[in-house]
């Protein structure tokens, strides 16, 4: 099962951030060369969140004691023991990450099918809503589950929905609208939708 976790545009090279997918906390990061990765957000050394760390080149380093990890989640370097070749057993739990249609998707292990492709659309923004997925989608009048489609502020939208908890989700919004005025109106409508959903308003 693929979960959308971010717009590709919002995770440029050298960025690492925490995301939640399928109830798991992950560190999502992009290397200098553009490779996207999603790992368990827990350093094998002392459990520090790797999303607090930093990317250098093709490796992710932990902020705490600086252990760094390569593409396969293998430990590359332990700064306190610079001459030590880190044992193979020190490994971060790696999830599968893939990009399609301007979205970043993750899955716990390689699914049968590639992630859903929303088609040629432009990314608008992601926003987190303190309300459950189903309530938000029905309030917005959007149809579908992982990729929901419809109209907001008179503009056609595609929303990739990331459930985060029973009463929290993130919306990753794409649109074909190219004009600045339309895009701004859509962004403001999303804020309004969030206010309504968080106030407990239900679809009629």
């Amino acid at each position, binding site marked *: 099962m693929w979960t959308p976790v*971010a*717009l590709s545009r*919002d995770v*440029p090279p*050298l*960025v690492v*951030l*925490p995301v939640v997918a399928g109830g798991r906390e992950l560190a999502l990061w992009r290397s200098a060369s553009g490779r996207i990765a999603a790992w368990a957000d827990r350093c094998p050394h002392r459990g520090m969140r790797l999303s607090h760390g*930093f*990317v*250098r080149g093709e490796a992710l*380093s932990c*902020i705490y004691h*600086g252990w760094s990890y390569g593409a396969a989640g293998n430990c590359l370097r332990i*700064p306190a023991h*610079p*001459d030590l070749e880190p044992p193979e057993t020190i490994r971060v739990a790696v999830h599968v990450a893939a990009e399609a249609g301007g979205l970043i998707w993750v899955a716990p292990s390689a699914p049968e099918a590639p992630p859903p492709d929303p088609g040629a659309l432009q990314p*608008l*923004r*992601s*926003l*987190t809503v303190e309300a459950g997925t189903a309530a938000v989608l029905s309030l917005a009048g959007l149809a579908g589950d992982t990729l929901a489609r419809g109209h907001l502020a008179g503009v056609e939208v595609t929303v990739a929905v990331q459930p985060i908890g029973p009463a929290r989700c*993130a919306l990753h919004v794409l649109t074909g609208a190219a004009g*600045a005025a339309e*895009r*701004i109106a859509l*962004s*403001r409508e999303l*804020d309004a939708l969030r206010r309504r959903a968080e106030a407990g308003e239900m679809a009629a």
Partner: protein
Amino acid sequence: MILYDYVLSPDCYKVRLLAALTGAKITLRAVDFHPGAEHRKPEFLKINPAGTIPVMEEDGLVLTDSSAILTYVAAKAGPEWLGDDDARMRARVAQWLAFAQRLSASIGKARTHDMLQKPADIDACRAGGIQCLREIEAALVEQDILGARFLAGDRPTLADIACFPHSMLAPDGGISVDAYPAIRLWTRRIRALPGFVEMPGIHRLHDLKPEPAKA
């Protein structure tokens, strides 16, 4: 210019940051904000009866508000930071300088509550802080649509300096910053500015620091 300063204060840090970015010469006077509560002592209240920091003093001029201090430092040492390119930019800078007071009153208070055990209505402070972060996020989304990478235009101004510290330090007050992608990218741009200086909890981009030499 003398700055009455406390190292952990975001409102003092923004002045140090602007001074570093503009090359302004400021003299720091450390205030024992915690645990000494020096800002509430009679001597300090003679300088700022409101009992807040930062305070700036120069040749009889006393400024007791961080937005006013930023304006003064910029006018003297880096007028481009005032954002006077056109009417819109100028008004946007004024708006964000005023907005920064809401950040102090919400995120700032949540932070002194959690870190220094100062009394506060912590739920109200956190709710106010989240509301502020959402407003900054939405504003940055709109700026991006208009082709501008900073709060008041396509270059950094006082607007960014005024709002940057609390946006970074919100987690100290129990306010998550995970859900704001536009804020994340904007704070990275500020942290990469030439001349950027750090404070505890706010660091230069690690990826811009050289890799420690292999032993």
